[in-house]
């Protein structure tokens, strides 16, 4: 791929080098820029060069970040924060070139406070790395995305991430007590519920933490976070149940979600298309009998005294409508595999059944439980239409997961996973993908849901629907963006927020 040299002014590069004071902290090489253009989600590879930043800077301190942002604001150069770059929307993808602020060197554990059960970290630390350090203290930070092994705290805050253990421990927004953020004009503020870096509940002022949580890099760059520490669970329990049809699994999902068990970490549901997909190459499902068309599963975390009796209730509820237990070996193994799903995105199938490499698109909607069957049916109908018309798509099925933190009943995170054969992409294919996304997202809005429960509505296909989902709040959102980022330098082009400047 030919790549134009950076268009950024050489004086700005010199200022960036002076701010950080390290020779290798400002990168302009082709590989450094190309590798920070995309995320794992499907990407318009035929137009890769349009998303390449002009420069990458790797700060170490909040002072570095503040000075970098002030420089960008003064010179009106776009600036895009990037943590792990593992997002499944486009939060970290530069749409207008400019400077990528890569926070991976801000990866220190600054304080472990066992008296108040908090840990304070830089935004560049990974949860698995953090938890390995916390084991010796008998505590953990239980934010558990499918990218657990590779995503970073800064990105979790940027997307307001979803945790597989959210029903038990909460999601990212519940597990981050407060954080420090550099505003688009360079000022540094600390946000929490009210004041107090380690205070979990306050009624003072506006709850600014929630404004900046899920900011998608459009309102600043997080430079430090104070996180919740929970006692390490003594034991975990997972049970998977097999069903002949989706409806029975769906009703069993509700029984489990409404069980009232305090140790319930999550309840999961696979539909028949998902089971068919897993039969291709997932060791847990390849040998399941043909009658298996759906799966419901639950997991528990806590003390042995809590989990052992609760596990018996889960076994009763899972079987109460006819579900068949999958067995200890697969229950335990498949649950652990759920924590790291970034290994599966190559298993696409062309229409003739041949294996082809595909990237993974997962629409991550929040859907009221009662609407799930209708949404599911419409989603697969949409997917089928696109699979039929274009050979670059593959329907990988739907799963649903309890969505509410500490309140597993009610709405679910529902994902339809789609494969996209990037190697075959041209502009017509990319536009078809955007159209597919938009139809899937619109279906969710039509049924009273939210189009994203964990990735963010930052890419084409979702972004243009943000005003519709936000309703009357959209004008307020634009006013906030204009106020905090008067020059639209902070991750411009995302979530339709350019309209705030028209």
């Amino acid at each position, binding site marked *: 791929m030919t790549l134009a040299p950076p268009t950024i002014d050489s004086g700005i590069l010199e200022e960036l080098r002076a701010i950080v004071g390290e020779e290798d902290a400002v990168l302009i090489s082709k590989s450094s820029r190309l590798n920070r253009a995309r995320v794992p989600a499907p990407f318009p590879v035929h137009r890769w060069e349009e998303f390449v930043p002009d420069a990458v800077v790797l700060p170490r301190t909040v002072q570095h970040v503040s000075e970098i942002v002030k420089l960008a604001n003064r010179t009106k150069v776009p600036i895009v924060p990037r943590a792990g770059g593992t997002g499944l929307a486009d939060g970290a993808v530069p749409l207008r070139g400019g400077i990528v602020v890569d926070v991976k060197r801000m990866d220190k554990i600054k304080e472990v406070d066992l008296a108040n059960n908090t840990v304070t970290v830089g935004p560049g630390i990974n949860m698995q790395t953090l938890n390995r350090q916390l084991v010796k203290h008998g505590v953990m930070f239980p934010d558990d995305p499918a990218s657990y092994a590779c995503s970073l705290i800064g990105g979790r805050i940027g997307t307001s991430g979803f945790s597989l253990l959210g029903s038990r421990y909460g999601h990212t927004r519940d597990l981050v007590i407060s954080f420090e953020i550099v505003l688009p004009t360079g000022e540094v503020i600390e946000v929490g519920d009210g004041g107090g870096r380690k205070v979990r509940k306050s009624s003072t002022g506006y709850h600014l933490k929630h404004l900046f949580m899920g900011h998608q890099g459009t309102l600043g760059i997080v430079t430090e976070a104070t996180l919740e520490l929970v006692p*390490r669970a003594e034991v975990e329990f997972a049970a998977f149940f097999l069903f002949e049809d989706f409806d029975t699994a769906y009703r069993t999902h509700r029984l489990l979600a409404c069980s009232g068990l305090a140790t319930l970490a999550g309840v999961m549901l696979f539909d028949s298309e998902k089971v068919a997909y897993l039969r291709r190459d997932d060791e847990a499902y390849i040998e399941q009998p043909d009658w298996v068309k759906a799966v419901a599963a639950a997991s528990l975390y806590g003390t042995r005294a809590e989990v052992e009796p609760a596990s018996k209730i889960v076994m009763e509820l899972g079987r109460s409508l006819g579900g068949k237990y999958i067995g200890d070996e697969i*229950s335990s193994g498949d649950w652990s595999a759920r924590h790291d799903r970034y290994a599966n995105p190559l298993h696409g199938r062309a229409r003739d059944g041949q294996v082809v490499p595909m990237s993974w698109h997962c629409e991550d909607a929040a859907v009221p439980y009662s609407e799930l069957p209708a949404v599911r049916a419409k989603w697969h109908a949409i997917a089928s239409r696109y699979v039929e018309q274009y050979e670059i798509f593959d329907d990988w099925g739907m799963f649903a997961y309890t969505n509410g933190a500490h309140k597993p009943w009610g709405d679910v995170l529902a994902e339809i996973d789609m494969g996209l054969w990037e190697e075959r992409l041209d502009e017509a294919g990319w536009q078809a993908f955007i159209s597919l996304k938009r139809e899937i997202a619109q279906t969710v809005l039509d049924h009273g849901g939210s189009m994203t429960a964990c990735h963010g509505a930052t890419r084409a296909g979702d972004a243009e629907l943000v005003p519709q989902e936000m309703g009357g709040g959209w004008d307020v959102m634009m006013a906030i963006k204009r106020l905090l980022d008067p020059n639209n330098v902070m991750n411009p082009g995302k979530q339709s927020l350019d309209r705030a400047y028209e």
Partner: protein
Amino acid sequence: MAADPRPGRYVQSEQAAPEPRRVSHQVVMRFDHVFEVDPALMARFPQQKMPAWDTKRIVAARWDHLDDVHRQFADGKVLAGEGPEAGDD
């Protein structure tokens, strides 16, 4: 594989994977509990040829990883104490 490889030696004949046996219409198995996509489905993107030791290394690393994941969030496991239930077919 004719016999277990001898440590410290690479002998080509010892590294050949056994002939696959069919598990499902799209999956085969060469080593016990190690599933592989049917090579017939990989005509467009052929499967990489791997020596037996490498397959076993990857499988062992996968199990190590899953064990490690269990330890991330809990010190132990509670199991139902049951195997898979039979269905109607």
